[in-house]
């Protein structure tokens, strides 16, 4: 658990400095003409702890710009030059790699059926599906699952921790961010493609970038298309609710 304590300490330090710096900006100036007593609200969005909100908002904005000027144009270019069947195969390839953390985490949550099916999927797709390029397992009717280390931690009672917006990756919380780092570290350590033997940094980066492009391609979310100026608040709530549902499942 090096990551957890390390990240928590760093965020605490950054958060404290920033909180001290921004406190004077938080007062609300002149009284507005329409006001309602505190505590009354139509829809709560403050139930998830968000101590570094200004930093999160700053990163949220950075992510939206990154998305608009770099990420989405890259995805559009990728889709333009790559024939659809190739795109699908690339998605299948990465989905197959993602079975590894799902297998480990469903085992850690004592979900026998899920881990068996996931192992089955990985074996079928890695062999008959030619290194994961084809999703043969789905043709055989083996269901796809997704479990990550954040869910495992949640399953064993680790609370959400503060809400954080991760650069490029988007909304998360301390528990799930830790989970993400752990899952990535595990996949790297397994070193399926033997990239550790010699210097294969180029391949490693290509794999990482392609993984990112593929994930973005398959994510429908577009920044500021919700039509509400309160998108950050709503995302904070829905992220928390969604993760809770996944953990309870």
């Amino acid at each position: 658990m090096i990551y957890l304590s390390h990240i928590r300490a760093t965020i605490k330090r950054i958060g404290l400095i920033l909180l001290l710096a921004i406190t004077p900006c938080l007062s609300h100036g002149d009284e507005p003409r329409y006001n309602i007593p505190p505590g009354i609200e139509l829809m709560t969005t403050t139930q998830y702890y968000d101590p570094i909100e200004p930093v999160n908002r700053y990163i949220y904005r950075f992510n939206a710009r990154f998305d608009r000027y770099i990420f989405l144009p890259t995805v559009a270019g990728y889709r333009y030059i790559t024939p659809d069947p190739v795109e699908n195969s690339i998605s299948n390839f990465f989905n197959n790699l993602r079975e590894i953390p799902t297998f480990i985490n469903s085992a850690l949550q004592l979900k026998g059926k899920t881990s068996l099916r996931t192992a089955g999927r990985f074996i079928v797709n890695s062999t008959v599906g030619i290194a994961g390029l084809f999703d043969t397992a789905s043709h055989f009717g083996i269901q796809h699952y997704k479990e990550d280390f954040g869910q495992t931690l949640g399953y064993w009672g680790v609370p959400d921790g503060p809400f954080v917006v991760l650069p490029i990756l988007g909304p998360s919380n301390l528990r799930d961010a830790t989970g993400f780092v752990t899952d990535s570290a595990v996949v790297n350590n397994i070193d399926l493609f033997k990239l550790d033997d010699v210097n294969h940094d180029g391949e490693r980066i290509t794999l990482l970038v392609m993984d990112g492009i593929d994930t973005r391609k398959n994510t429908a979310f577009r920044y500021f298309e919700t039509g509400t100026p309160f998108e950050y608040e709503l995302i904070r709530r829905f992220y928390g609710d969604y993760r809770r549902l996944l953990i309870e499942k």
Partner: protein
Amino acid sequence: MRITHAYSWKPRRVNPIAITYFAVISLLACLIIPKQVMADYGYPIEQAFAATVAGTPQALKAPLPEKYPATEHAITVFEDREIPDIFWHQDKFHFTAALQKNKNAPLIFIIAGTGASHHSPKNTTLGKLFYQQGFHIIALSSPTYLNFIVTASESQLPGYLPDDANDLYRAMKLALTELGDKVEPSAFHITGYSLGGIHAAFIAALDKKEQSFNFKKVMMINPPVQLYSSVDRLDKLVDNYIPGGAPNANEFLNGVVNKLSRIYQKTDKVKFSPDFLYKAYQVIDTDKSIKPEDKFRGAAGLIGVSFRISAAAMLFASDVLAKKGYIVPVDQELTSTTSLNHYMRIAHMVPFTRYVDDMLIPHLQGSNPGVSRKTLIHNASLNSIEPFLKSATNIAVVTNEDDIILSPAELNYMKSVFGPRITIYPNGGHLGNMDYKENVEHMLAFFKD
């Protein structure tokens, strides 16, 4: 066939004289009031709130084309407009276009409903349906949608229909210019749903004077008659159907979601399907343990809350942009890192009618001194363009007997204004039956030459 009552019908003996009498009466009725009484209308959801939420079951929907080459365009409407940092992401006006290969194909403008974008699900459905029939499509956001308020609304205070129509008209002309020589339509048409429906009528009235498009056909889909009274009805859903009103909405919504998930676990072992809400309706409708008056509280509350959420977005944006100091103090500078929790909480508690009374009307009276509140509210209703609507035989209306945004008096008013040009379905709530097969056939037939 009404699916919900399929098993409750029992044959019984009927007096033959009564049958003859009934036949003569209905024949006469068909001659006198064409299209207004519909026997055998098959849209299955009889409760208005449930219909509004659940829409049309998949199997009864009109088929949509797989290919819909819609592209999003971004243009600048006001060259010298400065956009505050908090809305940095809304720097251009966005619209959707889908063009036919034949550039002389007729073009149809589609206007979205309250708080909805140019690519809202309903705009997209309409776009696909008309594209399939050979129309060029230009779909626009509602003037009440955030992107429109920031980039294309002159006053940045939407809801006053004559001003909204001017804003939309300007945007429509610019959108057409943006598409350049790819379109040279043989004719222009316009349609819109809900608030977009009444916008379409106001735009048609404006075009009668300006003559930029000379619309061939205009169709209003489930429009309000008077903006103020319809938003008042929607505002009150939260107070009338959620026990304890708006402050209890949170708890109430959790209850609705829990109930739906229990139904989900019981009825649907497979995946979450688009028909799930329809199935939930059937379960609730036939559940004898729920009191009839409590059955569709959940649906009514959901509509009320989602209306408040759209209204809150509009209210906050207008308040900040027009510097009204209504919920955000005028001297409060908002940036993209300012916490909005406080303002969001307040914005969601303000009814739409309070926005009209406290922000919109004072603003309009500021620029038109001496004009009464009554006149302004009248100007934002069909009454104000009644002579035009009566004479314009190319305008048609479709709505429902049980549309939740209309009072019986308003429905009668539309009957008297539009006569044979209004089609009223017996059920469907607010837009619940918009993509039902029979409705779509009627709509497409209207736009066919």
